[in-house]
């Protein structure tokens, strides 16, 4: 049987029965791969950049990896750490046959001068030192923007160094031409794209481009739909007939497609917004596990069309519950299962907690989905301020905790204010937020998580009382940047009166009222090193009360911060927000009047209009028992009313 690889690699020429014996892949040795995650691309509007020659976004953020083993172009290629599973599959399946799907099209420069530098005596020939130097200097040229320059690959060849990076980064690196490095002047020039030393073979590149072309034709950005139906009919894919492929190769094929597609997207989190629907109709698929790569790439996929395939049993669909949990709409028509297991729906619905439509039949309402996503429905924040004290405080907090902590202390804290900080290092996160949690080291010495800190002495030492102690602590805590308060998806803020607080004037022994404020949100640490700027989630509870006479008018009695790994907040669904906003307005609108009220209104209207009771009631009913509205309506239609509408059949003057 023909394998997928041969279909991809040798679409036109004679089939190569044993691709692994080919040698074209060796050109990759000595190249240090510098990034392990796919770098998707999106233009400024967030749309996919499908044109493969488009400038790559220079956005950094990839974990920096520089292999140790690579010497002067002889060492085996050094794999970047921890490549994603799908990528490994792609490389296993495809790089053996020289199709390099992974390397995107970046720009290259040639750097001469390393040979004459002192660094040439380093174990690695100075490559590491040179790259580090170039990255630092190139980034530094544009200091204002804090940008990061990343060299993706570096290769020593014939005394010259060839560097690959995004076009933007290459532009910065080119500006370093003539800089002195370890005693040697560097000559940096751009490498023409088609100089023969570029990555995969023209043929492999061709396959990749064709696959990309196919993908771009099949992506509808307006509908956010990726249409992978009838792949066998696609001229760009050289009639890949999935139905005749081994299961293993189908998996590889979809991995490769998703890998390529991923390369075209900017960032993982944008995938959510880029594709909401995928059709894989009419491809002869017989198990969902073959398309796990799609679920991995689009864990938030909402609409999936699997019609016209070979799914024959619920077992073949079981993978849905592992990889497609966000599905709202699933189409399985024209599959054998519809006849062989007509009751398959029940099982499928139970696997997909958010499913609304199965084969176009409603199975749940959005409200039902929302209600079952937590037994405690998520409602809009309870914000009951008193004289805008809470709101004013929150604005000051946002501005000054980021910008001027001493000003915040001066305005709201006194010598009895207490601050403490607890870290929840094991907090759950969303399934899709699996980026590593940045180290907590800057916070641990202040950690007042009583679950961990058991001794009274430590508990006392990690509780900061009074402006001075709090000031010293805040000075040591990392600088922060909180999102603007108008970014409502970044915050949940609740506020309400709290009774029984100490009365600084000593007058009320039963205590006085203040406010209890809870802020849930996130902040970014402001480190000098951009790559160390960790994003953290926090909850912070404040109790505000009246200040001591002569001191701050409103003081913070207690300020407790709980930190956890970053994850987006759970917000009420838009439907709930709308419904609750409407609820607030509704009582003012109208309620059905009682019979007594109706009678009163009818009498009033009859008196004013001279209409018969029958017409009066009709008029009121038409105007939902709103007297004023009914009278206005009467005035507009009066000339057209028949005499019978009026008492004694006489139109009043």
């Amino acid at each position: 049987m023909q394998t997928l690889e041969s279909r991809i690699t040798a679409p036109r020429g004679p089939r190569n029965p044993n691709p692994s014996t080919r040698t074209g892949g060796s050109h990759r040795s000595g190249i240090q791969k510098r990034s392990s995650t796919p770098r998707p691309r999106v233009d400024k509007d967030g749309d996919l950049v499908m044109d493969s020659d488009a400038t790559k976004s220079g956005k950094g953020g990839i974990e920096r990896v520089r292999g140790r083993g690579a010497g002067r172009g002889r060492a085996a290629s050094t794999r970047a750490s921890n490549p994603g599973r799908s990528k490994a599959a792609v490389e296993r399946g495809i790089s053996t046959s020289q199709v390099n799907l992974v390397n995107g099209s970046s720009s290259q420069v040639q750097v001469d001068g390393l040979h004459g530098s002192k660094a040439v005596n380093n174990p690695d020939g100075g490559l590491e030192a040179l790259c580090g130097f170039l990255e630092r200097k190139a980034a530094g040229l544009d200091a204002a923007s804090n940008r990061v320059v990343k060299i993706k690959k570096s290769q020593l060849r014939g005394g010259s160094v060839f560097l690959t990076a995004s076009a933007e980064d290459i532009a910065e690196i080119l500006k370093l031409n003539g800089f002195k490095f370890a005693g040697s002047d560097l000559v940096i020039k751009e490498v023409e794209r088609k100089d023969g030393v570029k990555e995969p073979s023209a043929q492999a590149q061709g396959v990749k481009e064709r696959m990309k072309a196919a993908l771009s034709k099949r992506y509808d950005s307006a509908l956010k739909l990726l249409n992978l139906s009838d792949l066998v009919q696609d001229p760009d894919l050289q009639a890949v007939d999935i139905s005749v492929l081994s299961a293993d190769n189908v998996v590889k094929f979809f991995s490769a497609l998703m890998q390529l597609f991923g390369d075209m997207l900017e960032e993982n989190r944008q995938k959510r917004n880029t594709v909401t629907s995928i059709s894989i109709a009419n491809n002869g698929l017989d198990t969902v596990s073959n398309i796990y790569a799609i679920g991995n790439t689009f864990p938030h996929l909402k609409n999936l069309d699997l019609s016209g395939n070979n799914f024959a049993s619920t077992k073949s669909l079981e993978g849905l519950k592992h990889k497609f949990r966000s599905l709202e709409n699933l189409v399985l028509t024209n599959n054998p299962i519809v006849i062989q297991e007509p009751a398959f729906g029940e099982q499928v619905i139970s696997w997909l907690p958010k499913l609304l439509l199965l084969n176009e039949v409603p199975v749940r309402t959005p409200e039902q989905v929302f209600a079952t996503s937590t037994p405690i429905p998520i409602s809009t924040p309870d914000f009951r301020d008193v004289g805008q004290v809470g709101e004013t405080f929150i604005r000051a907090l946002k501005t000054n905790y980021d910008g001027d902590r001493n000003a915040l202390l001066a305005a709201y804290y006194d010598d009895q204010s207490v601050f403490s900080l607890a870290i929840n290092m094991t907090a759950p996160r969303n399934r899709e937020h699996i980026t590593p949690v940045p180290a907590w080291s800057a916070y641990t010495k202040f950690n007042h998580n009583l679950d961990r800190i058991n001794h009274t002495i430590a508990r006392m030492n990690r509780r900061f009382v009074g402006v001075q102690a709090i000031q010293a602590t805040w000075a040591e805590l990392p600088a922060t940047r909180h999102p603007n308060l108008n970014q409502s998806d970044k915050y949940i803020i609740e506020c309400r009166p709290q009774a029984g607080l100490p009365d600084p004037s000593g007058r009320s022994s039963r205590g006085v009222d203040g406010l209890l404020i809870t802020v849930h949100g996130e902040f970014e640490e402001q480190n000098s090193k951009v790559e160390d700027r960790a994003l953290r989630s926090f909850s912070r509870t404040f109790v505000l009360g009246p200040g001591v006479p002569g001191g701050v008018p409103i003081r913070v009695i207690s300020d407790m911060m709980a930190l956890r790994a970053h994850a987006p907040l759970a917000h009420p669904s838009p439907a709930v927000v709308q419904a609750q906003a409407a609820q607030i307005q509704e009582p003012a609108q109208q309620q059905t009047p009682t019979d007594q009220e109706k009678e009163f209104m009818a009498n009033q209207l009859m008196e004013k209009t001279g209409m018969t009771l029958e017409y009066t009631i009709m008029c009121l009913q038409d105007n939902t028992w709103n007297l004023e509205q009914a009278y206005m309506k009467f005035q507009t239609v009066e000339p057209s009313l028949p005499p019978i509408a009026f008492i004694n059949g006489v139109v009043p003057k």
Partner: protein
Amino acid sequence: MMGDIPEDVLVRVSTQAADDFVKTYYQALDSAKNLASFYIQAADIWLNGNNIPDPQQLQTFFKDKVGNCQYDAQSHDCSVLNQNCNIGAPDNALGPSSDGSKMSILVLVSGSVKYKDSSDEARGFTESFTLVPNFEPHSQKAPKGLKKWLIQSQTFRLVV
């Protein structure tokens, strides 16, 4: 007024109260048993922005609507709000106490929870409680084993 309670007593008593509370409260929540006994009758209870009018309705809500659940208080912290809190105190008990027994305590909990029948993923929550002294034990006829502190206000939010 402030300063009546030595700092070590204040910290020991308040943090111990928070430890005990967190341990027993979440156990009770998981099994929806005797929840009302943790609250003063006039408690101000808000779960995800929904008001629960009184402790009995909270008990019913957890028993009937929430069902089996698994709360894990992964982190908790506390702070003393008032050293002489008189919410619900009888008129003859308004004076301060130096042993910390009249403190009101704010407890902030961050943790995870799994609800039965919903998605099997753990969700994150943050919850703050104001605990006030339980003045029942002060009276002669108070039964043994009564809680020293009761919930006066509760603000719960699923944050993940």
